[in-house]
């Protein structure tokens, strides 16, 4: 079943990380690693959430038709409104559970994109989910996965909440770590694609530095203020913290991310492979 760590707040598919968005905003390049985008016409965005990636992609590449699917009706509505407000008409959002059987014919897309979905599904569900992504991909088309590890920060409260998330995702079987230090999602991706039957798999690493004074700081610190608030019931339920402790840490984190000495860098990995 697909319930996110945020399910209880009815925050839908709020993803833990959006490390790629500042780069996309700055460069207008949602698919920077793809050498040739001309054969890509139909794109599926998995767990499209607020729609940022799908809208940016439709906007950057007018020849594409982008479909975003999400199982949260309010998110789908808000993504549609956002697309309309920005005058983007080659993107569509559909209410659908992205991690179960997809109500779509075989071979519907040249590109299926899933970014930062660690946490939404149990680690053991990935092979089955990827099979379904592959089914709706056209032969010669591509599955593209982007995942990150915890942001690396010089500030203890921000880093420690990340650590709690890592621990809770491990406890609930949602990370690839054998003991919860980090998520271990990024090294898992290439083999998952290969086992699903993808060929010519490739990997590329990126970083986002969202320390104080960096361009990415404003957007990502706002994003983390939101997600690290919404994730708290999940952390409590997983038993990795107490109400008192997490409230105190969150307060401290708010001070850290707005201070001049806030330091944070996130590594993330994009892995893609072709359907034969």
């Amino acid at each position: 079943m697909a319930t996110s760590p945020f399910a209880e707040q009815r925050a839908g598919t709020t993803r833990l990380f959006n490390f790629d968005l500042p780069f996309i905003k700055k460069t207008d390049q949602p698919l920077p690693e793809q050498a040739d985008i001309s054969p890509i016409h139909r794109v599926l965005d998995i767990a499209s959430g607020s729609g940022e990636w799908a809208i940016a992609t439709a906007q950057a590449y007018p020849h594409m038709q982008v479909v975003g699917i999400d199982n949260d009706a309010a998110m789908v509505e808000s993504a549609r409104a956002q697309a309309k407000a920005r005058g983007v008409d080659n993107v569509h959002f559909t209410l659908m559970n992205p991690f179960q059987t997809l109500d779509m014919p075989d071979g519907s897309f040249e590109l299926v994109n899933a970014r930062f979905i660690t946490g939404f599904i149990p680690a053991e569900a990935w092979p089955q989910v990827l099979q379904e992504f592959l089914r709706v991909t056209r032969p010669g088309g591509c599955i593209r996965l982007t995942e990150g590890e915890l942001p690396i920060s010089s500030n203890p409260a921000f880093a420690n909440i990340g650590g709690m998330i890592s621990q809770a995702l491990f406890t609930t079987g949602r990370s690839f770590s054998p003991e919860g230090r980090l998520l271990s999602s990024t090294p898992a991706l290439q083999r998952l694609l290969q086992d699903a039957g993808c060929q010519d798999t490739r990997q590329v690493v990126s970083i986002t530095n969202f320390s104080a004074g960096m361009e990415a700081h404003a957007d990502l610190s706002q994003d983390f203020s939101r997600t690290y608030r919404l994730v708290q019931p999940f952390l409590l339920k997983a038993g990795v913290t107490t109400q008192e402790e997490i409230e105190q840490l969150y307060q401290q984190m708010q001070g850290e991310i707005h201070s001049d000495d806030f330091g944070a860098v996130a590594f993330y990995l994009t892995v893609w492979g072709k359907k034969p």
Partner: protein
Amino acid sequence: METYDPAKTKNWYILGDSSTEGVHLIEQDVNFNTSMGGLLPEQSQESLSHISHVLDVACGPGGWALELGQADAHMQVTGIDISANMIEYANAQARASGLDNVSFKVGNITEPLDFPDASFDLVNARHIEEVIPVTAFPPLFQELFRITRRGGIIRITGSEWGVTNSFAYETLMRQLLRASRIAGLDFSADGRNIGIAPWLRRFLRDVGCVNIQERPSFLDFSAGALQQSGGYRDLTLAFELMQPFLVGVGVVAPQEFEELKQRLSVEMLEDSFRGIVYTLTAWGQKP
């Protein structure tokens, strides 16, 4: 058994500076040079054409400096390291390869550096988070800035080591991070990462560098990946050499360490093993 005692030796080599560590560092140089895509892969041709005098600090057995001198005969490359063993080895390698544009000398980078102002076009520091305490970084960067010419480049590379699906690896990493904290080598705010990555840009900025840029790289040592065997040799050797440090500062008992080490070599050879090392290089110009 060897012990870890930087107060006595003034040497923060957590792996010691034996010839085995020399072998390990040579392996590590090769692995990182490959995964990063070259020796100075981020520098443009234009930038490289202005670089002839290069210093590599904490050069270990000299792998990076030797390769650079070999690749480009017009480069004058100097390496310094605190370990006389490493420097002796590096100089022997330079002689054996007939490289008269590469030289090495003993030098302690936690003290003022024995070079005049503005001596170098590029000053390079790789993986020094493993060899000097956190408190030694700001004064070192002041020194690097001083010995770089105006318009020259200061370049630093730091690694976050591996993230894997091996229980033994992850457990040993936690022990390494705990021991690093005790030894004052720790950048981590939470004991889960080495924690150097957010600091690189800041060190350059704080001494006055401009045009600061960053470039990530990764080394995939998963089963079946290109760098599996290199990563296996490098990391099993690193953890082997780490025993005196980890046991010495008291984060693990010898027996438990032995078991984890054996489990590590089994797990890293399993077909399901997955592991990636993330590395960040930052560089900036002296205005």
